[in-house]
């Protein structure tokens, strides 16, 4: 009872301070106009003022939320690790983003949106379906700084959502809630692809969240699931590869919804800008597929094989052949693994609907990422499940070492450009594919123990329900 009273006072104080801050802003605005803010709020060196104030405001809102959760007794022994992990991740990234004062890639999006706004064709540097540019087009009147701010805030919200969605997906795959929380937290704290996604204001987190939602909602809300995957595809074309996993389910209703979802989402662009943006994107993608320039942190087969041709007398047709052969081999390997996974149900066993989907989608993430003509560091996010779900399966010390090496190369090592050593992110998913080659049907003993250990972490004993 005393706790409740203290928390009530604290939450009220938080609300009071929030109102005071808002009141002070209003007072400054009314008393001095826009000039007043320059007196009371300053921008210093290495600071981007809008994102600084946004990160402070979100941090403040988070603490209010925490107080509310405590007050409403929503944090309990059963979910405390989930919440600790979330707030740790959130506070880390908010502080990190506050210290970032220049953002890359977003300029390409803004340029594309501005072109659409001015009824001009999409620039040849824009390689996605036009949805994202169409959505940003509505923000063009606000100016570049505000577009950055809005997309920045959406990315922050997305990283928060990613935490909970990944957590839920892992639970769906048999991780206990606490182990899922620990794994998600550890995964997100040190993660070069996530860091780069946020610092380049990339769309990856939105795409990945839509894919996660598609998986999570598949059984209960197939229409929403299909709509989510359609959204992911319209945001970044590569998730189209994942449809194979849904096709294997032969769920024609879902496929119908997916087609309808795509048409609905695409119609936003059609209504706003007509068919031209789609044609521009097609042109850009064909143009990109024909390009062979070696950028050493682009971890695609295309980039890897291009550099020797730039230095030595290697013909471009040989390079092209090597790229095609590599990608064909990749497709064959993935299809073969899919075939095995359908039979063994190694990642998720059971007889319910969706088992083929949940098992086959895992290697498809690797195909989706590696088959692309450009593989930037931040694309590593798409490999999340392919890596993390292997934790259920690997048992032998040798497998752990291989997994550790791949994990280090994909998620931990900072980005750099040094041929051929910086192509670790090309090798890492292939190692993971190799580890998937011959997976046992049952989870590893260590995983079962870890699940039980995690559930007993705070003293609560559980049944051996995760040993299944």
């Amino acid at each position, binding site marked *: 009872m005393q706790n409740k009273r203290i928390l009530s006072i604290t939450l009220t104080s938080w609300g009071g301070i929030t109102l005071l801050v808002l009141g002070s802003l209003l007072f400054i605005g009314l008393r001095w106009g826009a000039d007043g803010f320059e007196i009371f709020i300053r921008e210093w060196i290495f600071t981007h003022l809008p994102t600084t104030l946004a990160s*402070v405001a979100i941090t403040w809102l988070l603490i209010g939320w925490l107080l509310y959760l405590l007050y409403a007794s929503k944090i309990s022994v059963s979910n405390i690790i989930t919440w600790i992990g979330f707030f740790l991740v959130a506070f880390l990234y908010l*502080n*990190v983003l506050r210290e970032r004062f220049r953002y890359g890639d977003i300029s390409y999006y803004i340029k594309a949106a501005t072109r659409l706004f001015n009824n001009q064709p999409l620039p040849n540097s824009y390689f996605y379906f036009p949805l994202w540019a169409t959505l940003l087009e509505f923000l063009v009147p606000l100016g570049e700084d505000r577009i950055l701010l809005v997309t920045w805030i959406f990315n922050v919200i997305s990283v928060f959502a990613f935490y909970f969605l990944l957590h839920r997906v892992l639970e769906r795959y048999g991780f206990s809630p606490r182990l899922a929380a620990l794994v998600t937290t550890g995964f997100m*704290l040190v993660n070069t692809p996530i*860091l780069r996604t946020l610092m380049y204001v990339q769309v990856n987190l939105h795409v990945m969240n839509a894919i996660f939602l598609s998986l999570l909602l598949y059984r209960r809300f197939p229409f929403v699931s299909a709509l989510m995957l359609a959204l992911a595809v319209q945001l970044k074309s590569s998730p189209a590869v994942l449809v194979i996993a849904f096709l294997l389910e032969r769920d024609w209703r879902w496929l119908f919804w997916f087609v309808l979802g795509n048409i609905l989402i695409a119609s936003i662009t059609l209504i706003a800008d007509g068919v031209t943006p789609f044609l521009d994107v097609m042109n850009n993608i064909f143009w990109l597929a024909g390009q062979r320039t070696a950028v050493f942190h682009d971890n695609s087969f295309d980039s890897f094989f291009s550099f020797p041709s730039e230095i030595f007398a290697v013909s471009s047709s040989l390079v092209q052949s090597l790229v095609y052969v590599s990608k064909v081999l990749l497709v064959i390997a993935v299809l073969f693994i899919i075939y095995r996974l359908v039979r063994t149900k190694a990642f998720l066993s059971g007889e319910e609907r969706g088992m083929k989907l949940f098992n086959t989608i895992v290697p498809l993430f690797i195909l989706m990422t590696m088959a692309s003509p450009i593989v930037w560091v931040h694309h590593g996010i798409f490999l999340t499940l392919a890596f993390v779900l292997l934790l259920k399966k690997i048992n032998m010390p040798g497998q752990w070492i291989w997994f550790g090496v791949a994990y280090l190369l994909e998620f931990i*090592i*900072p980005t750099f450009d040094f041929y051929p050593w910086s192509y670790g992110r090309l090798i890492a998913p292939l190692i993971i594919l190799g580890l998937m080659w011959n997976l046992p049907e049952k989870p590893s003993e260590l995983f079962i123990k870890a699940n039980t250990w995690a559930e007993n972490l705070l003293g609560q004993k559980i049944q051996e329900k995760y040993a299944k």
Partner: protein
Amino acid sequence: MTAKRALLIWGVLTLLVISSLLSIWLWRGAAGFEIAIQRGPFTNLPVALASVAATWLLGGIFLHLLSSKQIDSKNALTWAGFFLVALVYLNLMRERVEYGDVEYYIAAAFKLAVEGVLPIDYYYPPLWATLLAWLAPLGEDGAFITIWFFNLLGLFAFYFLLSKTLELYGFSANLAALVTTVFMLANAPILRTMVYMQINLHVLNMVLLGLLLYQRYPALSAMTTAIAVHLKASPAVLVLAFLLEWNWRWLVWAALSFLVVGALPIVFYGFQPYLDFIRNTALVAAGHGLNFRENSFEGLLMAFSAVLSLPDAFVEIGTNIARAVLFVAAILVMRRNIQRETFFTGAEGARLFNTMPSLLILMTLASPIVWVHHGIFVGLSFLLLLKKLDSPASWTLFGFAYFFEFLLPTFDFFPWSYGRLVAPLIILWLMWKLSDKSSELFPKANCWAESLLMEKTH
């Protein structure tokens, strides 16, 4: 066996990378590196390569620890926390393109190397500039990357030293590791120290070493404390804690060390750097520019004075009164903490260990300038209170203070950005209020942490 093989492969790969560098050099000279190594967007190339190399080396250290079976259930959490913290910061540092403050150090060091004097905007004793002056032959870029690397080592060392210090104060090894890890992961002052390449971590490491070595190696403890004072004058306040011990041997060592370390700049540049230091300190104490994120008493009062057009005397008198009140409060808290052995119970060093938390607050807030990154000096004061928090009210107050000091990103909005002035004062108040309390939660947490990776609880 597998770990040994992995370590061997790691070694071979390392040799391959080194030999590829050598081959490039032999093949095309320096121009060859421009072919094989590119500079990506938003990249400071030396920093990017150094962070990659450090990450790779950490991978090797990890494999070595595994293969030599140095990681076990007793220290697994400590190592897990260390690698987590180290890898987080290495990635963050790689993405930082421009670093602030370090340019002042380099400018001071190079001016000292060339002219034998310190510039007017250098507010530290001359030791740091003297040490950095030796880097002058490397040029600004060489000096920069060397300081960057030492800051990284400072961060790694800080993890272990803070963890050990918490153990000294009664935290179990696992609880100390958990607390240190969480403390360091989301920490605005540490982040700012790193991205401004400030000297704070070296200073605090020396202070922590001074504490850790006090009982067994008093001479070394005195030496590290003397180095801390020569790196940044403010830790001189902490000597008060050692004085209270009446440990004459330690004091003699401290005085001797102080003279020996202090003689280093004199040997190379005479007394002039010290005269410059005194001049600069007097200048900064007489007043400085207005920044809403500068959380000193003076900073706050200057802001009020500027906004409300108050006379200068208001700032001066107000600052002096505030500092005097802080001093008296810190002394009273110290006295009470010594009497009640609030933080540390034991025969040797009890006065020192009980007075240190409040003195760290005095040291930080009595300074004429209190930047965000100075917050790391009050870290120990905050963390040790975890032993004493016993009621929802005390937890709430502590939570707010912790949030303002360590979690809230820095910003400049008068008067709301002065949370880092209020936070240590809340902690001082809690030290007074909770001095005779003992938390039931703390022993439980200690026990729980120890049983985390073991079958039986101690």
